[in-house]
């Protein structure tokens, strides 16, 4: 709860207490609000005037005299004040002091490690240090294995992983040729039977459910290792293009030679036939 809300709550309570003291039993919400506003603005005005009076007198903080003078300036009857305080003191309503709120600790997302405590010269209310890893420097202890052999091994393993991932992805999404045909068929049969059994237990048959195929394939893949599968070779209308021009062989485009300088009959433009004359 913000400070303003606490103050306005106290103001409302105070206003309501004033009303009660004045003899009212109940007060309308809107009226109370209006009253609170009026009292607030009155109080603020009083405080301002007091402050100005104090500054006019060469002081930084107002004293009771300043306040009284301000009240007088605003048209208040100061002489009645002691009586009012005497009368209202008895049986008056006590407004409890607002409870000090326990600061709800906002959970920092992803805090890693413990922030360093503030040094002695830094006040506690300043925000804590950020995550240690963002500014802490630690000396490397023990040499990482950067030998030639290790690097080559890692590079090879990485290449292999990339290739394998691509291969497995393609195997799971496209058609394949089994190397163990009979075995794979029997596994597939078993998978089908199992799925049918599961379906039978569920008793909800959705003919459009594509999950059936998925699970069957998944079951087969689990039992038949990937190295027993060949990707179905893709037929193309011009297979020589992919076989002769690999994507790795990107062309460095050399500027075209001046073809116009070469006299070759095939480069000449064809003759346009003489149109037969048309007679009416």
């Amino acid at each position, binding site marked *: 709860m913000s400070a303003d809300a606490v103050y306005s709550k106290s103001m409302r309570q105070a206003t309501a207490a004033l009303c009660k003291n004045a003899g009212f039993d109940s007060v309308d919400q809107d009226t109370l609000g209006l009253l609170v506003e009026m009292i607030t603005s009155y109080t603020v005005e009083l405080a301002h005037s007091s402050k100005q009076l104090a500054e006019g007198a060469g002081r930084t903080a107002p004293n009771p005299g300043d306040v009284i003078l301000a009240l007088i300036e605003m048209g208040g009857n100061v002489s009645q004040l002691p009586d009012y305080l005497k009368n209202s003191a008895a049986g008056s309503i006590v407004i409890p002091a607002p409870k000090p709120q326990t600061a709800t600790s906002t959970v920092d997302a992803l805090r890693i490690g413990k922030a360093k405590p503030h040094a002695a010269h830094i006040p506690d209310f300043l925000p804590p240090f950020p995550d240690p890893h963002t500014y802490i420097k630690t000396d490397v202890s023990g040499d990482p294995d950067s030998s030639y052999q290790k690097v080559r091994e890692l590079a090879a393993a990485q290449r292999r992983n990339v290739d394998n991932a691509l291969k497995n992805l393609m195997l799971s999404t496209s058609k394949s040729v089994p190397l163990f045909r009979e075995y794979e068929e029997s596994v597939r049969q078993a998978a089908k039977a199992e799925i049918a059994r599961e379906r039978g237990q569920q008793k909800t048959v959705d003919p459009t459910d594509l999950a059936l195929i998925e699970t069957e394939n998944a079951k087969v893949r689990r039992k038949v290792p990937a190295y027993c599968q060949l990707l179905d070779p893709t*037929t193309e209308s011009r297979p020589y293009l992919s076989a002769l021009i690999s994507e790795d062989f990107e062309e460095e485009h050399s500027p075209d030679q001046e073809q116009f300088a070469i006299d070759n009959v095939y480069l000449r433009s064809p003759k346009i036939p003489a149109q037969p004359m048309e007679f009416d």
Partner: protein
Amino acid sequence: MSKSHGSKPSKQDVQPTIDTPRLFKVLSQTVYISQVDLRGRSFAGFTEITVVAMRPGLREIVLNVGPDVQLPRDIDDGVPRLTVNDVDADYVRRDPFADLEGGAERDLKSFARKFFDAASTVDSEVAHGNGELVVRVPDACWGQADATKPLKIGVDFQVARPAQGVHFVCPTGRDGELEAGAHMFTYRSGIVSSTRHWLPCVDVCGELCLWRIEITCDVAFTAITSGELVETEYTPDMRHKTYQYQMGVPTSAVNIGFAVGQFDISVLPEMCEVSSFALPGLGSLVKHSAANLDRVFEFFEELLSCRFPFGSYKQVFVDQATDEVTAYAGLTIFSLSVLYHKKVVDLVPHSRTLLAHAVAQQFFGCFVNPSQWLDVWLMRSLSRYCTGLFIQRYFGNNEYLYHMQRVLSSVHEYESAWGPVFLRPLRSEDRAREALHFDPRNSETCSPTYADVLAKKGHFTIRMLEKRLGKEPLFQVLHKILTVSMQFSQQRFLPASWQQMTVSTDSFFRTVSNVTGQELPTFLEQWIYGGGHAHFQVKFSFNRKRNMVELEIKQEPSLNSGRQKYVGPLTVVVQELDGSFTHIVQIDDVLSRHDLQCHSKGRRQKKKKIPLCTGEELEIDLTNMDADSPVLWLRVDPDLLLVRKIDLHQPVNQWEYQLKYEKDVLAQMHSLETLPRFPSPQTRHTILDVIDNDNIFYRVRCQASFSLTEIANKMAETWMGPPAMINIFKKLYGSKSCPHIPRPNNFAITSSSLQLYFLMQAVPQAMARLRNANGSCLADVHKFLLGLIKYNDNSQNRYSDDYYRAALYTALGTTVTQPQQLGETALPDALTPEMIATLDELTLALNMDTLRPSFGRVVGISALKGIYQMQRKGHLPLDPDVFWKFAQPGLYGKMRMAALDLLVDLVHSCRHSVVAAVLERLLTVVQSDPDPGVRYHLAKQLSVRPPFSGRSSADVGPNNPASTRELVARIWKIIAGSRTDSRVRGYLIDAYRAMYGRGTPTVMTMGALDFAKSRFSSALGRPSDSSGRASWDNLGDDSSISAGAVDSGDGRRSSANDLHLMDDILE
């Protein structure tokens, strides 16, 4: 009436044009092609052939035309006509192969005769009046004909869905729309020509005429054909273009081809007459591949001192081509597989050789023509010979020698397995047909494999000729031939002189003797008109008393029909302590003995340098020598002067000396091939030194690693510790701090770097063949190879490592051996951890190749082969469907062929019951695959690795699940079918011969009861009596061919297949 070619050379008329038996001469032919419909696979055409009768009385004009060409009577729309001088003429079509089926014998012996006779009826070389289309000269034109004035035959024709000769490639999207890159092109389905399958013409090599070709196609397309492009013009509706070509150099129909399609042109900046055409998207590849062509032209023009004969040169790179190179006059159609990317180094030598070979064929074959089929070998040999010199110039003498050695071995391997190759069989003799299972005297009946070997043997023979005559005289001969052709090609108005542009075997050798003054009767008889190769078994010993080497040379010509009995000189070079001495011995019988005088006299104590044949002097450590003999080593026919195979016996230390100190790469290779017979720590050490020595030719070093494997395998029991090859690899390629991790790849185009690169591919494959005493792969090697694959790092490399990775996966596949105990193979759990690791690598490689294809799919192909190995060795269940998946149309051609090869191998080597169905399906692919390249490749593979071999008794007929009567019937139907593609037919005849021999197949001769019985008995495991076994081959000499020769050949072939390094150049 036959031409005079059958007669002896000297009698042949010098000017065949004067007294020719030809009835007419073609002067010119005009071709109009329009309505090119790529999706409908058809086009329409009109051709006008101008002929002149050679003598009065011409009433019939006979042309060649294939069964797929629709002539006016077959065409529905329009008013198609066949006219002579604009008068409608009657015509008759003949189908020569309508009746090949024959009786129930189904034997190749009688089929060969029948087929040859049928093919001869349409071969106008045999008699000028043979052909598929007979046009009756209308009465109105008789006067013209009798006055020997020109006659113009106009023919409207259509070609729709041709089965051979023309191929259409139409990439279509999912919605059936035509995509970019549609094209069509002509190819040779026959050995010499298949122009007749899309154009009525006189389809023989020797008939030259002038051409004018107009092709109208869609504006988006380009039409390329032989001749000079005169003009391109829009049609009036502006939706089509007409390309007008003119061929001013007399050319035969054989050398006319065309291509139409969506091509991007690139022009060689240095030579604007050379245009290359690429399919959309491949422009940069074509530009890069063709970049060095100007040097090729320069080389050949300088070599032959003759300018390029045609006004322009066009190269078109097409998809699904049947051959890597198809040469037409001024136009070459290449397969896409010839292209290389600038990041791929492996293909460069091969591709450049092919591009050069194509240019060489422009000179010999397209410009200078063979006068008939029987002389085609000469032109092909000359173009190959010139290409060989290109190899020598650009790739070095060692490469050239290595190449020649390979040519030689493929010749004697073929001859040992199939029979003799006659370079120029005489028309009048049946000798060639008697020796072979087909008749090589007609291009239609000749086997395509034979034709290929023919050109190789010819190439080798031309080189022999060069060695005999000297290089300069030979080039004077070639120059003379080219000059004469050049001169007569200018004579556009003297058609009779065009004949001078053709060369026959006789006229060639006549020119040889005119220019050089040498007659070569023995050479001609032995190597040109005769078939077979020489086979020498050479033994020798040193006789100290006489100070002589006593040499014994044995030939066994009767052992197989591919051998000849050689009589004549033979060079023997003896390297002695005092130098190298050449002796020429005369071979006069199947067994001959010779004494060779030695020159060195016991001066071995003195430390002295030893002179070699190259003139160099070397210090040689002589401690291993036989103390009595001064002979360091001995070589027989070192300069490849004969078509021969040599089995030389010499002691192991001499082989080692030869390997270490002889500079000739062939000598080193020969030692490496022989040394594995002598496994010892000493030979091991010698070979290790070779692998390690970077002064040695890289191919020798690669070969050495394989020899080392062989030796190590023979010494498996005695050897402990890690294999030596791992250490070599670590030393050469390992990183400094941890040798088992190879350095990141960094290829460079320097000779030392390339040598290391090729060795880097060979060594892993060699070590993968290492086996321990149990016959399984070494665990160290397996682990090391997995490491090589895992740590391979190409991120910093300028070049692609696809071929290297492919080599590693091939090596990994080779490590797979039979499991020690056969377990349940149908379950993944039954795999051993090593096999799981192998399989994991292979499937990952293959899957990644599917997702991110390597260049030419080499990695995927290697991985697929590895998976096949795992199936064959019983680690995975045998499942042909896996390979069928990769053989389906729509995948890259090389991948498909590799998968089909595996299936062929499965049928060839496996006796499981699935093979029958696989074979059935393979035959369907052979018959009806959309890609003719795949059809031919597969048919060829079936002949090279037949489903079963008639030679092996366990395999023949009854006890083989694949061998059924239905199979015989099915293959026979293809062979005897009238519409069968001629190359497919040729290959299948070879396969049939390999399976059943030349007689009637055993399964056919057995009664049904016998058949069932023998099948039953074989099922029981008893040796089948096979009642009809003797009849599988009617020829005695055939069955005496040792099965070993075939097997060893196969084995070598398959190991060579695995090795990218050993790929065939010019094959």
